[in-house]
């Protein structure tokens, strides 16, 4: 199967800049930091693949390698089956790179002029460039502001123009490096909608997006890879990741005015795994119990049966799903614990 993006044990190490002392005392000593370590990911065509990780995880480095801006130290990276180290020109023809840095535009040129300049650098003839730019401006809802200088654009408009620039060549794959960074929640939401509905839905592009925003990853991506300290910890759909990281099920049971003895008995239930009791809620269902079951085949029924059997009065019961954020933190916490932090 030909993947839009595929990496095989991709590793990137950067040399650490020497201090004056090292230059004098150890001029030939070189120290490196690992930005990516044995990264293996596969992004399918037509999907939104999210690279999720905290700042400094290696997301930008990976995207830059895939966009041929950085050379890997070892391993392989392919974009549409093309090796990034050998096919720079071919890759540039099929990708769009949405640089989230607003300084990547010419501030005293208008939005339209900026797009025209980049169109020329992408070998688009004048007439075709004008038509494409007009279409993209409309697509990104920037037509009315196209002839204003870039410096007068709002952050949201700048980001939209960056996406328009990424789409100039009608690329098959679009790389977006934190496209909603520094946007207000409403603009970010609109931009996510635009990526999902228009760029992937209508234009049928493959989007490879990096983000540290869990909500964004959950809302936008078909599949994600959680990356931390240069290593991909887990890959899959949000559901798959949740199942992998947290196979147990959690339920919240609200009880009506339980007696102390009952709560003690619930703690000792053999059918339940971890039990957490949160007393003093609002009357009448003033006690909330979180029960974690290890067996999904009906053990919650057993728990309920036993509680009722002990005289418990259940007001409500629902399954509690861990958010991606909680799972993400679990991955990071585990990693930090293992690193001795």
């Amino acid at each position, binding site marked *: 199967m030909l993947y839009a993006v595929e990496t095989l044990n991709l590793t*990137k190490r950067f040399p650490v800049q020497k201090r004056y002392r090292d230059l004098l005392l150890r001029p030939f000593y070189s120290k490196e930091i690992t930005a990516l370590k044995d990264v293996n990911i596969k992004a399918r065509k037509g999907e939104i693949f999210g690279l999720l990780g905290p700042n400094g995880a290696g997301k930008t480095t990976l995207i830059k390698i895939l966009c041929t801006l950085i050379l890997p130290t070892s391993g392989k990276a392919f974009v549409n089956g093309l090796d990034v180290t050998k096919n720079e020109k071919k890759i*540039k023809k099929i990708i769009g790179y949405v640089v989230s840095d607003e300084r990547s535009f010419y501030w005293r040129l208008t939005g339209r*002029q900026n797009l025209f300049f980049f169109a020329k*650098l992408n*070998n688009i003839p004048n007439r075709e460039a004008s038509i494409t730019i007009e279409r993209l401006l409309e697509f990104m809802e920037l037509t009315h502001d196209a002839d204003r200088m870039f410096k007068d654009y709002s952050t949201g408009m700048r980001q939209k123009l960056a996406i328009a620039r990424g789409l100039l060549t009608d690329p098959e794959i679009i790389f977006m490096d934190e496209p909603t960074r520094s946007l207000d929640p409403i603009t970010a939401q609109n931009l996510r909608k635009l990526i999902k509905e228009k760029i992937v839905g209508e234009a049928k592009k493959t989007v490879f997006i990096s983000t540290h925003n869990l909500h964004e990853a959950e809302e936008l991506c078909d599949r994600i890879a959680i990356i931390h300290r240069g290593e991909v910890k887990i890959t899959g759909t949000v559901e798959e990741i949740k199942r992998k990281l947290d196979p147990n099920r959690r339920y919240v049971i609200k009880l009506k005015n339980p007696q102390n003895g009952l709560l003690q008995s619930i703690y000792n239930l053999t059918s339940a795994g971890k039990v957490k009791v949160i007393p003093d809620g609002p009357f009448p269902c003033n006690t909330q119990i979180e029960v974690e079951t290890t067996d999904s085949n009906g053990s919650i029924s057993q728990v309920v049966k036993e509680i009722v059997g002990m005289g418990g009065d259940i007001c409500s019961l629902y399954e509690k799903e861990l958010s991606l954020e909680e799972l993400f933190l679990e991955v990071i916490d585990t990693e930090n614990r293992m690193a001795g932090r």
Partner: protein
Amino acid sequence: MALFIEKPLAFVWRDFINETSYKFSFLLQFFGIFISTLIFFFLSKLLGDTGASYLKPYGGNYFSFVLIGIAFYSYLGISIHSISKSIREGQMFGTLEALLVTQTGIPTIIISSSLYSFIWASFRVAVYLLLGGLVFGVNMGNANLVGALLILILTILSFGSLGIISASFIMIFKRGDPVSRFFTGISTLLGGLYYPVSVLPEWLQNLSYLLPITYSLEGMRLALLKGYSLSMLMPNIAPLVIFSVIMLPISIMAFGYAIKRAKIEGTLTHY
């Protein structure tokens, strides 16, 4: 229009819009040309025939001598500085990364980025020469324009190669490029910009003949002020050709190495 012309033109168009958007600064540049011409005109009046013997090979007039010096010296500055400047600006402003992911090769990006400076310099030279000829009476009636153009092209090529080496330093070290500093300083001192090389002590004169600027400025003056033919200009043309033939391949190799190293270190867009 062929794409190889369209891309450089796009850079010129970009820079023109950018420069002219700073209206006051743009107009001020014209004023600067007039002022500097006027300064050298009065200086030449003050000097009178003082240095006539030194200036004899160039027609004997200090104003004509220095006017051509300052007019064409700007090409040296641009050839050496503009490429590294465009890289540095791209790194600092953040535009370099966006340029590097386009379907345009790095050499085209870098060279095209400095085109506007060359066009603007040519315009300035034309204004200098026009002012000199029409207002201050510099006589260029016998000028060998073909010879002057050839020397100009060789000047740009030889200094351009130094500029590319300078850009390679900037690509790796980001700041503190020794090539442009050294060559600009030494060329101003020894290249015959404000005074003929013949006024220098002999050992410094010998040093000056290692610099391409010496041949550029002398050749340009002889072509424009004395109307020397191509064969008469050969002592100036030949060293420039040799310099270009040696330095251009070296500079291109150095630049290729710098880009690869920056890509390995991930510092292509750092500043």
